[in-house]
């Protein structure tokens, strides 16, 4: 399991992470980010890509 954390004080709901890891991240009907706090090990590349593309650098993988 991979632990995913988003700093919601930083997050501006750009939704770039949604394109990279759609199972983990999505924007709800109010344009706000929602996410799963746990990803599968085989989703590490996707989550790392989401970390990379976040304009606010708000996403973290907790090792």
């Amino acid at each position, binding site marked *: 399991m991979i632990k995913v954390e988003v700093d919601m004080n930083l997050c*501006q*709901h*750009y*939704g*770039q992470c*949604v*394109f990279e890891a759609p199972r983990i991240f999505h*924007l709800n*009907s109010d*344009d706000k980010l929602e996410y799963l706090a746990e990803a599968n090990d085989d989703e590490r*590349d996707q989550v790392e890509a989401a*970390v*990379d*593309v976040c*304009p*606010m*650098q708000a996403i*973290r993988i907790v*090792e």
Partner: protein
Amino acid sequence: MDAVPDAAPVIIVGGAMGGLRAAEALRKSGYSGPLTVIGEELHAPYNRPPLSKEVLSTVVTHEAVAFPRRAATEDVEWLRGRSATAADLDAHTVTTDDGVKHAWRALVIATGLRARRLTLPGRQDPSMPGRYTIRTLDDAIALREELREGRRLVVLGSGFLGCEVAATARKLGCEVTIVSPSELPIIRPLGLELAAEIQRRHEAHGVQFRMGRSVVDVLGDARFAGVVLDDGERLDADVLVEAIGSECNSEWLAGTGLDTTDGVLADAAMRAVSQDGTVHDDVYVVGDIARFPHLVFDQTPRRIEHWNIPTDTGKRVGAVLAAKLADDGSFIEIAARPFTPMPTFWSVQFEIDLRAYGLPSLADETRLLEGELAGACVLGYYRGGRMIGVVGLGMQAALMPYRQVIAAGGAR
């Protein structure tokens, strides 16, 4: 060509986001050999966009903008505070400003851009106190000190950077005047309608504009004291921010034969290309210095100065170069894969929350797709009837589906 020992490292020249992403991607793609990054700045790689936005409005620190470190790149050798002065593609070397010649097995060019400075006869000293650019963390730290209530700021340039700095400074209580030769702010990427709306919103917040004007003199001796415009107007001010674009850090490649007409020419695999058309399997280009064909739009190589490009091109180079070095037969197939990173950018100016995909600057037609210009809206940008860009003010959920439309070639 001299034989290059396999023990020579891959050398990445450029220690900012593009260099970091290339290093990470090389490791992720299986390259485990020696890897060296040469970087001019002393800081570990950090995220630049907040420097004119959120971070400039609070306390500017490296921690606030540093990229996370990854275990896979812990063994990368970083040579900080050094810049490349020359390269030799036949001898496989790069020379740094301390006179050291470094041998490489493959070279990654990621030296990016620097801020263009205002140059006026007799006023060539851009280090005059009170004159600033905003490209690096140190630039932002220095400028932040100046942005106090009541300070008079002249922002030279009305692109995204100039408008963002103007808005941030205004929010901090500065008196701000934007001076620009353009007709309207950010007009080149955004077009007439949206540019006029952006100026209107800035003016509502008290930002002053001198559009269609240029600076003919800088006032002050020991310290910046104001500017004189080409219509004779004198603007007394405490701080000058020069946001007049950028220049490519490609001088160190002089004499290599590479096409450095505007940045460094690369093919769609991000391999560097010489003036004579030679494509180099062992020299690559990453980031906003790369001029490469983006096949979603057309065959024309162009530089794209958007935030996602260092990451996307860095990952591309990591995958292609790792395959080349692995010598396992995968190189030709991996280099031939389509590479069409979606240009992605955003801007925050007062309540303006602008987000965009594609290359709206190429458009010959703009259409209002959702909402209204004076409030939240989505604008589509078209060339020959095909969508090539989309810009939203707010309306994130409505904006996102258009990204796929552009990626699919823009047909609707």
